[in-house]
């Protein structure tokens, strides 16, 4: 980005440093807060919110299922943003963010799949049907699985960050198109598959809505905590590596330019 004035760059590089340290400081608080709300959520789900009359107990999965699905989406949006920022700023932090967000997103997608399947068993009498949204979710899972594998297979001496960023962007752009095409695939011609997923989450009784929102917020907190934690781990690991190489070289009596960030 040559057109970018130098000062901006400096601003950014200091800014992401600040941002990083701030997050590290608040990390423990967020952690405990997440635990608290999580406990509270489960309290609501099991003792407060009334049983859904048609489905009965299985329906309670709803409160895990939906938030994890939405957070999966959120984290992939995160990957997209971080990837763009990385290609723009070329600062390691964004690369690490993208990667960790992808990991967590993959985790939540898995959770969505699992809870969904557990839910489907009693409701549809089968773990899986080739329904539109299920299929999209599965594809999403594949896409970001691939993204993580790509990073894992980095060739020594190649900066995967840039490559992964490109893939992250393309992948994210593709998701809505995939969703649309899959929906057409299932709906444009008659199909006997249960279409339960397509009644929107509207029409919910207030109590359920409240519970859902509480659960959603607690999941969000967990998400944020995971993200910061992972980023911190990655950063630290990288710095350690750098230190090792420098020490190794100084041992061999060779001075090195540049110091640890």
């Amino acid at each position: 980005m040559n057109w970018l004035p130098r000062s901006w760059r400096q601003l950014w590089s200091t800014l992401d440093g600040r941002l990083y340290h701030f997050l590290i400081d608040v990390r423990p608080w967020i952690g405990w807060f997440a635990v608290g709300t999580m406990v509270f959520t489960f309290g609501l789900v099991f003792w407060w919110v009334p049983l859904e009359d048609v489905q009965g107990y299985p329906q309670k999965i709803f409160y895990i299922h939906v938030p994890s699905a939405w957070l999966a989406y959120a984290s992939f949006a995160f990957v997209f943003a971080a990837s763009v920022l990385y290609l723009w700023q070329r600062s390691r932090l964004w690369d690490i963010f993208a990667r960790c967000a992808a990991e967590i997103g993959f985790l939540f997608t898995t959770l969505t799949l699992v809870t969904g399947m557990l839910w489907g068993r009693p409701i549809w009498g089968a773990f899986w049907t080739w329904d539109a949204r299920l299929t999209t979710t599965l594809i999403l899972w594949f896409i970001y699985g691939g993204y993580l594998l790509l990073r894992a297979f980095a060739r020594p001496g190649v900066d995967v960050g840039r490559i992964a960023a490109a893939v992250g962007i393309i992948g994210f752009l593709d998701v809505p198109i995939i969703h649309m095409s899959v929906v057409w695939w299932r709906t444009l011609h008659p199909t006997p598959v249960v279409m339960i997923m397509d009644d929107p989450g509207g029409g919910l009784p207030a109590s359920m809505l409240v519970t859902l929102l509480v659960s959603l917020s607690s999941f969000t907190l967990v998400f944020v905590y995971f993200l910061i934690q992972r980023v911190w781990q990655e950063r630290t690991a990288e710095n350690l590596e750098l230190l090792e190489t420098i020490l190794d070289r100084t041992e061999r009596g060779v001075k090195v330019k540049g110091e640890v960030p």
Partner: protein
Amino acid sequence: MSGPAPALAILAKDLRLELRRVESLATMAVFAGLVILIFAFVGDPTPADLARIGPGALWASILFAGALGFERWFAEEERNAALHGLLLAPVDREILFLGKWAGATLFLLGLEALLVPAAATLFRLDLGGAWGSFAILLPVVTVGYAALGTFFAAVASRTTASQLLLPVLLFPLSVPLLLAGIEGGQALAAGQGGEFWDWLGLAVAFDVLFGTVCTVAFGTVIEE
């Protein structure tokens, strides 16, 4: 911007390399044929099903054969680090991409020229008058697939497991194209014109979007 001339140079070189051994195109055709057969086995379709599985088998075979091809056409550049020779040249990355993309598209089209008749006879596909529309759908889908394929071949070539990683990255993202191909074909077979145009539109949109994105992103992927 260095003009399109270098892109043509690359295209010509790729054609020459492939035509030097027509076998490789033939082999890909045979491979695709095998894929079709396997699908026939697996679905073991009753005559009624045939028409239903047909388009799918055709497109799946193109999907797989393509994935093999992309990996191979890019590996060609990896040997003796010939790719570095290209990067060394006074040519913008975008132009390099266009060259490779064009080559990939041509080969896929050549492949399809062999596959479509084969699949049509095997699965008793009969689009009657609709073949014309199909002749539009085919290249549209192909161009988009070639773009994604070339791009991800470059991506995969940067890893230690290219031939493994390429399909894993490529297939999920190609789903819209695959579906456009299959469903569009079936729509034609069932004579539902309107639906067909929907799918065609989807494919075109896909081409435009990812054609540009891949061309732009290629540079960041390829340089070290």
